[in-house]
């Protein structure tokens, strides 16, 4: 049985298409990274799983139950770290955890949970005074109450410093090793790459890739990136490069042409650029990072903006 099974889900908000015929499956016991730029529909997908939002078409099932019909039973067995939440500013961490325990009908030691998420000293402080990172740790702690079978974490590293993000990943791994399924979303590939068994990439409400990290790497033209320094970058150069069948991505930065292509076809690329009359001043090749892949998949840019390098997110 799949932990999460989304089948053909579409959802519009007014004229905005949030999800378009989305299907994905999360297997039991795996860590599934749900990746995509902001606004791709990640939170909408999670909202459908939790029955905050009802799809226009399609169905979602969680832990073998229909997400709409059995939402309460699902949430009984699921730990949730939502996005865009706010903690109860007048209640302490202890009171938050006690509320979760009462809601789920379990009894645990609040101090041990806060110890685990790294804020034991805040146990009797009102959450209104917490930093964003502390609130995030508290809600993560709340999601762990009752050893849920499934963790749904929406952008869990938001507000955490790099150290906090590492601790978050450790907890995610511990939960998986305990037997839980973890479904978490992020717009930052590095968060996902380090910990996920499988990744799904969402763009404009559609799943554009779903694979293991290795599988994704293999799927991108041998996983190599060729950077060619030329004297002039123009449309004919880009066109010539794109006409080579094995090229899976082309972008330009200043006087450089960056090409995703298998190693064996690199000379063909150089020849093609020369063929347009441009002079190749130099080139280098390296194994593409998933960052490149992610950028390739989630952006449409063919000729990059001049300042794309500085303006790109994360």
């Amino acid at each position, binding site marked *: 049985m799949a932990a999460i099974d989304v089948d053909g889900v579409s959802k519009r*908000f007014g004229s905005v298409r949030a999800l378009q015929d989305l299907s994905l499956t999360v297997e039991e016991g795996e860590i599934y990274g749900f990746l995509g730029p902001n606004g791709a529909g990640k939170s*909408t997908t999670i*909202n459908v799983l*939790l029955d*905050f*939002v*009802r799809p226009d078409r399609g169905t979602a099932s969680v832990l073998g139950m229909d997400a709409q019909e059995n*939402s*309460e*039973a699902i*949430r*009984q067995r699921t730990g*949730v*770290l*939502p*996005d*865009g*939440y*706010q*903690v*109860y500013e*007048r*209640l302490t961490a202890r*009171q938050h955890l006690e*509320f*979760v325990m*009462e*809601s*789920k009908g379990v009894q645990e030691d609040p101090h041990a949970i806060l110890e685990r998420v790294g804020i034991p000293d805040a146990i009797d402080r*009102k959450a209104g005074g917490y930093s964003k990172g502390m609130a995030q740790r508290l*809600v993560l702690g*709340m*999601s762990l109450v009752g050893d849920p079978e499934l963790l749904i974490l929406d952008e869990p590293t938001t507000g955490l410093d790099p150290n906090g993000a590492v601790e978050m990943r450790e907890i995610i791994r511990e939960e998986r090793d305990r037997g839980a399924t973890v479904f978490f979303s992020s717009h930052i590939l590095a968060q996902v790459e380090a910990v996920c068994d499988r990744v799904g990439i969402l763009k404009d409400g559609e799943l554009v890739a779903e694979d293991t990290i290795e599988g994704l790497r293999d799927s991108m033209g041998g996983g190599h990136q060729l950077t060619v320094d030329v004297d002039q970058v123009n449309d004919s150069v880009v066109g010539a490069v794109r006409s080579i069948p094995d090229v899976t991505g082309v972008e330009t930065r200043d006087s450089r042409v960056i090409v995703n292509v298998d190693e064996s076809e690199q000379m063909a690329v150089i020849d093609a650029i020369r063929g347009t009359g441009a002079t190749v001043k130099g080139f280098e090749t390296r194994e593409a990072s998933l960052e490149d892949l992610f950028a390739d998949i989630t952006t449409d840019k063919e000729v990059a903006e001049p300042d794309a390098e500085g303006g790109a997110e994360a």
Partner: protein
Amino acid sequence: MSWTAVARKDFHDSVRSLLLWGVVVVFVLFAGLLAFLYANYFFDVLGVSDPTAETVTFGFVLLMTGNFPLLQFGVGPVLALVPVIGLLLGYKSIAGERDSGQIKILLGLPHSRLDVVVGKFAGRSTVALIGIAVGFSVAALIVLVLKSIEPVIFIQFVVAVALFTLVHVSIGVGISAASPSSTLSLIGVMGFVGIFQVLWGATFFVLNAFVFEFSGQPPDWFRFLRNLSPGRAYDGLMASVVPRYAEYKSEIASNATAGAGTEPVGDAFFTQDWFGVLVLVFWAVVPLAIGYWRFETDDLG
């Protein structure tokens, strides 16, 4: 039964905010001040020499409900204050959590949206009841010290006030449940106050004056419609909960100068006490049910 967890959480939150204390203070000032004024100044208006505890108590009850001699044309203090308090207690209960995103914490836990609506109603009602209990205890103490008091009648009266308050908490929570934001919810409850506290009486008064020219007996449909507001129904609730309320009311009214332009009550069904109770049951249930339905079917983005 997880609404109890929601209710308890909501109440704890209210205790730590100004909400509970604000409500307690308002009721203490309101009931206490009126009790003080009543015992010291207004009581003589009743023109009762050597009054029994029962008379003293009913005098206070009639003052609070706006049926006191000389003051009977104004809106009674309970009718002026209680609906506003009840609605204000409710309007942010659910819409406020949607504004802030707290609702995502709440509904990430195994609660249904019905649990949320019922739990919020219960939590806010508890706050209202504590405010009323404290406020009217202070009032009772003041009247007792300065005059005397008949506890059973007074408690019956407070129960009626409490029920009337809960009706408005229910309306406020219902409007809140139906509203995607607390701004809309506030507009909703202000609209409700505007219509039923201000426009309702004024509209029927003007119609009565110009269409029926105070003929003394406007048609039944007119009187039926007029009796559908919560405020008009309140007297029926009072008479149903406080057994000798109606009797004292007419007695004291006849002691004072007969009110000009009063219509004969008649015995149509919509003038009966039970009809007032029925109207209040309607107001307690229907807005909350509609609010729940809107909340249940809405997307919480």
